[in-house]
């Protein structure tokens, strides 16, 4: 299949290695140098491909927020759940004394 691309549009930005490291940091995913090397062109390909959206005239169009019109419901402000600490902790990789346990945060 042919890809529709928009060669004439100016790219918003090109993703380089330092940008990949920055995004990975924001996403909290550790990446090796080799992965950064591989990811930069992959992300550029995908971002270059989605860039064709810039050519669409969207003047006067509101961004979609719900595909099917549906008002958010309100419920009574009462406790409807709780008292299930063991259930909540049941799948924790490490739980101690009724809490989730994590590496020390404050030295």
């Amino acid at each position, binding site marked *: 299949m042919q890809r529709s691309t928009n060669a004439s549009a100016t790219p918003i930005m090109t*993703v380089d290695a330092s940008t990949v490291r920055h995004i990975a940091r924001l996403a909290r995913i550790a990446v090796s140098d080799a992965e950064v090397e591989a990811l930069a062109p992959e992300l550029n390909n995908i971002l270059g491909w989605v860039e064709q959206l810039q050519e669409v005239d969207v003047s006067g169009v509101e961004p979609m927020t719900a595909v099917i019109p549906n008002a958010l419901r309100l419920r009574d402000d009462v406790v409807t759940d709780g008292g299930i600490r063991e259930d909540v902790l049941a*799948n924790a*990789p490490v739980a101690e004394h009724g809490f989730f346990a994590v590496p020390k945060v404050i030295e």
Partner: protein
Amino acid sequence: MSGLTDLGIAAIRDGVRGGDFSAREVAEAFDAAVERGRALNAFTVETPEIALAAADAADKARASGDLKPLSGVPLGIKDLFATKGVQTTAGSRILEGFEPVYESTVSGNLLAAGAGMLGKLNMDEFAMGSSNETSAWGPVLSPWRRNDGGNAALTPGGSSGGSASAVAARLAPGVTGTDTGGSIRQPAAFVGITGIKPTYGRCSRWGMVAFASSLDQAGPMARDVRDCAIMLEAMAGFDPKDSTSLELPVPAWEANLSSDIRGKRIGIPKEYRIDGVPAEIDEVWERGIAWMRDAGAEIVEVSLPHTKYALPTYYIIAPAEASSNLARYDGVRYGRRVAPQNGNLTDMYEATRAAGFGAEVKRRIMIGTYVLSAGFYDAYFNQAQKVRALIARDFERAFAEVDLLLTPTAPSAAFGLGEKSDDPIAMYLNDVFAVPASLAGLPAISVPAGLNAEGLPLGLQLIGRALDEQSVLNAALAFEERAGFTARPEAWW
């Protein structure tokens, strides 16, 4: 009684009700088929005892005259649905060993309707894929092979690949799937079965592992239209636990099934004729158009001018939502944890997510993080949400003229494992015909239309107005009657 696995949902339900066989015999037959079918890698967990327990309950219910809508019907459940006490991984290593303490609304609805569970079905990791090759538990094999005498392993499609293979190979009479951008319809087409994605909001997303919340929707996959109608009725319904669940009664889709579609207007979107799509896709589309004409429908050409922007729109919105949804996998509350020696909390997050997520999931999280990051939000995400509104408007305008749309489901028949896995965008193009209806939240079904020259199934898609699943199912039934699709893969597994 291996003949029992040849029966679909309606036949099993009616046979148990009529006393032609017991629910236990059915469950035993499918449990055995699941075990024999292990070479397909369709199941991640087998739960024969749960299927048997439900069957025994069904046999008791029959004796006491207390049968439920799905009593005696064993089903497969996609591993995206949280199942109480049964490992739920969404195809990801990061959820290895996760045993939910609750049941998803959709699987719970099915169990409450009397159905049994044969096991959890393999899938692309977090439903991100179109070939089931991104699963942490290995790809699912399609039961189909090309008729060239070779044994090339083919994909059943994705992300509901295990679901598709299980039904096509007669390991289950029906299964749940989920569809974010084609994940029910494309695999259904690849293996010659029927699958419907209902209107967004019909099925509760509560307890469904989230990928892209504004798009994710559950639906049934089964051998025919009636079976899909039966299952969808049991799955759907208002759920206060999902804020996007539609507060509407569930229509009696099965009782109202009718293949009389005389006078219906069916649109053929001209923008779905895309360069580079193999001729066999156009041919099967023309055959489908002729069948709809034969059924008394009026065929009308329509235009959906923003179609070409649907895929790029999807590949901004879906990764953006995924990057947000998947932030929850932090190694703290559930799933895997990788904590480097003497590392701090951030090191733990980063190591956990690096080890737990596969390449495609990381790629999409990174794309999503990028398009949502400071300075790019308007250019990418907001622009995509505006184009999405235009895509939905295209459909609205078309549905002012026609009742349904008929299109191909996928741009090709099933491809071989490894053929597209090194090119993300080539893989994304699989969903070119499926994604627009997802972006607009519309009900859409894939029905088998025939075999190509290589002996592989091809499917066509019917898209309907929001909430009009009945018209979609009825037209699909008329289609099914004319297609007369009875081909099935020869058992090699």
